[in-house]
């Protein structure tokens, strides 16, 4: 009799526990979806009482879907977001803070790369990355060889970059560039290269410490942008958006050098074989005045305000799992994105990897930009270059306009944040009473 009661009780317990089902959302990207499916399988094997439903949406609709679903009390318990969206998500009340018990601050601060600090707001962490990305310089070994350069030696400094680019550029009899020395795509990754790398290398900083003021409208910023624009206007080694997109020109063997993120690796690896096979190498970004810098961006996972009770515990477990060293190594091997934990990234075979290595080494000195609106702020850099290249405006004048536009975006966003915080506070007080 007692055995039966016990058995029934146990059965009830397991069915109750089985009922914990959480939902995970990310945007549609083939390799990531496959990797996440595998991670979920492994997680469910370890935690048979938790089921994770995995949902994904095209990038274009992703943000809108998350915002609408969570506002309606539906959708994901654990959600993936771009680091730059954090302030939007906090203002909209989509995320809840990660508890100190499950995610001790000291552990995050010791084990993750320092840029994760930007996921902290008001003393709480809100999200953690599985993987991070950084920039590096790709070079085409075959073109180097043809130009009489050592195919194994990429440029180490910004001056060498110019010098190499000049040697590697080819033009038709009419003077049109048929092979670019260096790709130029401000709308792709170059705006990040300029903002966080060039500006710093020329002795400036892009924004002030609390990220409320544009600081690049000075001598350093001007010199940095002059350096960049010169590739198109003075050295004539590049055409802006040559062959539509730098990565395409590079992959087609029509550009000798290209700066891009680690996410391009998989695109470049899918090349056809044969005689014209693309031979490329990847190196750390060139330094200048002895200053090394890099730009890092990442996707993070957070727990939504919707998860509570059992679901919250399950969500925490799942988040812990997908940000564990094991998951990160798997992610690197499968997706090609860099581990967010130093210990994993610094493993010898990762750090010295012929492809990932340059990116991982770049993480040591990488900076993140806390965008208020990535697309709008990016556009200020794109337009800054277009005014110079297309309309012949001086760098000084164009930089001043861009700085003002950027500052306006920041000011508008800060007002909004302040208003949202005030609104939250007033509702918070009334619910306490």
């Amino acid at each position, binding site marked *: 009799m007692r055995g039966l009661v016990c058995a029934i009780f146990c059965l009830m317990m397991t069915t109750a526990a089985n009922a914990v089902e959480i939902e995970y959302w990310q945007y549609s990207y083939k390799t990531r979806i496959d990797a996440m499916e595998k991670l979920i399988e492994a997680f469910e094997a370890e935690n048979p009482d938790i089921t994770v439903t995995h949902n994904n949406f095209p990038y*274009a609709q992703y*943000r*809108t879907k998350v*915002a*609408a679903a*969570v*506002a309606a009390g539906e959708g994901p318990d654990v959600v993936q977001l771009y680091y730059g969206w954090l302030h*939007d998500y906090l*203002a*909209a*009340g*989509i995320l809840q803070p990660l508890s100190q018990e499950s995610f001790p601050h000291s552990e995050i601060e010791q084990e993750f790369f320092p840029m994760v600090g930007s996921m902290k707001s008001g003393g709480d962490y809100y999200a953690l990355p599985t993987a991070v990305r950084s920039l590096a310089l790709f070079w085409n070994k075959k073109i180097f060889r043809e130009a009489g350069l050592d195919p194994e030696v990429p440029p180490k400094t910004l001056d060498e970059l110019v010098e190499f680019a000049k040697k590697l550029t080819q033009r*038709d009899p*009419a003077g*049109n*560039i*048929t092979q670019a020395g260096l790709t130029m795509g401000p*709308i792709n990754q170059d705006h990040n290269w300029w903002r966080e790398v060039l500006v710093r290398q020329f002795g400036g900083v892009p924004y002030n410490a609390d990220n409320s003021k544009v600081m690049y409208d000075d001598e350093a910023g001007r010199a940095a942008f002059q350096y960049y624009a010169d590739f198109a206007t003075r050295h004539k080694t590049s*055409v*802006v*958006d*040559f*062959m*539509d997109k730098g990565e395409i020109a590079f992959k087609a063997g*029509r550009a000798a050098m290209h700066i891009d993120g680690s996410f391009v690796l998989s695109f470049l690896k899918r090349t056809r074989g044969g005689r014209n096979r693309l031979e490329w190498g990847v190196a750390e970004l060139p330094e200048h005045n002895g200053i090394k810098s890099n730009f890092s961006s990442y996707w993070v996972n957070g727990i939504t305000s919707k998860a509570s009770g059992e679901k919250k515990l399950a969500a925490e477990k799942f988040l812990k799992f997908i940000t564990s060293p094991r998951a990160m190594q798997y992610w690197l091997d499968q997706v090609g994105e860099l581990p967010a934990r130093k210990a994993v990234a610094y493993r010898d075979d990762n750090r010295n990897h012929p492809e990932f290595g340059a990116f991982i080494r770049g993480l040591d000195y990488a900076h993140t930009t806390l965008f208020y*609106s990535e*697309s*709008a702020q990016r*556009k200020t850099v*794109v*337009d800054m270059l*277009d*005014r110079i290249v*297309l*309309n012949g405006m001086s760098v000084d004048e164009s930089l001043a306009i861009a700085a003002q536009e950027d500052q306006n975006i920041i000011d508008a966003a800060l007002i909004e944040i302040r208003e*949202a915080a005030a*609104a939250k506070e007033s509702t918070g007080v009334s619910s306490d009473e």
Partner: protein
Amino acid sequence: MSKRTIAQKRAIWAWVFMAVPLVYFILVRFYPTLDAFSISLTDWNIVGEKRYIGFDNFVVLFNDPVFWVVLGNTFEYLILGVPISLLLSFIIAYYLDQIRFGHGFLRACYFIPFLTTAVAMAWVWRWFYQPVPIGMINLALGQLGIAQFEFLRSTTQALPAVLAPAIWAGLGFQIVIFMAGLRAIPKTYYEAAKVDGAGAWQTLTEITLPQLRPTIVFLVVISSIGFLRIFDQVYNMTQEGEGGPLNATRPLVLHIYKAAFDDFEMGMAAAQTVVLFLILMVITVFQLRVLRHDR
């Protein structure tokens, strides 16, 4: 108990059948349209509360220099697009109507672009317009020894370059409508003109064009609305769908899209929608008035 007349019964049935589309239109068309007016008076980021701010969105909008550039572009699409496309389609329809050999095949050739998805077409044209070494047009010009055009990378050439495939895509539809209009003109008019000894030009201006008036009114109105709402071509032919370079190709609808789904400023997007609505309404009413007046 009075029996319903047949007419009454018919009316009831008509309403029964109309009820479904009517409900659909009210819910999916009219209600959101009206709602856009009220959203345009708020500050709303899709989540969270709508905050009433009066006409602030409109004030900000009218003080934004980019908005005026965008509005200028929108009218440029209209002013270039409507006459060019109507002239081309009329000429093609006029001559196509006179040939018998290969008529069906030629008509299909002109109509196919209308059936093709705008996105695929925009991307093909985007590649046509590239500079050497890959752009087809510039490669051909190079062969002829002509300097290459900047096309999409020029602040002056980009808008016409984006407009060209839009005109081309709409041509098939306009040609078919024009041909239907041409066929509807009674043969007897032409016979009478011949008997009276009228020349080809006189026949065209005195008979064909006046008889096509309703067709022309219809096409002007429809294509005006189409060019004022241009989006797909610009979104797909410019870098990251920004309507560049330097906003040179950005039309109002793209500006609305960016405000709504990049910046999540739904109030601002709705305000621009209201502006677009008013422009469309004024232009359409004006065109109907002017073009339809009795001779």
